[in-house]
């Protein structure tokens, strides 16, 4: 789309949407939000970028290679955290029993493995949304 106003405003707004998404993911254990909504916000910001600047430029920012790594990495991070609990405490996905720090409830760094799992879910959901959109919008000649 060759509209100057739309492209300028998009370039200004996209970083703030992504910042808000990261904020929601990281504060998933002390306020409403979490991996699903924050990941969907980040994915929506990338969809907005794709709609305004086209698939070619968007794939330079977020290529197939990166999305492959993000999709597998989200699940693998989740399973790795679960396996730590399995090795240390004997059951899959153990939180405080496996020695994750509890911290002070209400602080940003607290609640053991919950923020790490939220980050994994966020990466997974964001890359899923953007990959599904790219797959659906791609024409045959790409």
């Amino acid at each position, binding site marked *: 789309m060759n509209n100057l106003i739309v492209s300028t405003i998009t370039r200004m707004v996209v970083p703030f949407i992504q910042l808000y998404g990261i904020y929601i993911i990281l504060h998933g254990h002390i306020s*409403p939000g*979490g991996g*699903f*909504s924050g990941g*969907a916000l980040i994915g*929506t910001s990338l969809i907005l970028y794709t709609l305004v600047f086209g698939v070619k430029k968007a794939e330079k920012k977020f290529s197939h290679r990166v999305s492959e790594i993000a999709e597998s990495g989200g699940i693998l991070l989740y399973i790795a955290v679960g396996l730590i609990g399995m090795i240390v405490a004997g059951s899959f996905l153990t939180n405080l029993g496996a020695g994750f720090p509890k911290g002070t409830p209400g602080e940003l760094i607290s609640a053991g493995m919950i923020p790490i799992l939220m980050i994994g879910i966020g990466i997974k959901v964001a890359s899923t949304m953007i990959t599904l959109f790219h797959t*659906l*919008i791609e024409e045959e000649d790409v």
Partner: protein
Amino acid sequence: MTVLNVALVIFLILAALAVERTKDLLGAVVVFSAFSLMMSVLWLILKTPDVALTEAAIGAGVTCILFIAVISRTERYEK
């Protein structure tokens, strides 16, 4: 709060009927987006802010964009 709840329920039923009636699929998608957004407000009234955030981002945002992408690749009017 009850008045707002009842009004939102009536609006939701009207929006769902409008989705059912509209022959133009693009218009139906727009009405469906409004439906999802009102649903998110209703969930805020029912004191579940997590679900409201998720619905506003996924239901009203991503789903409607995907519908519009598919309509742009296929046909717009229902027979």
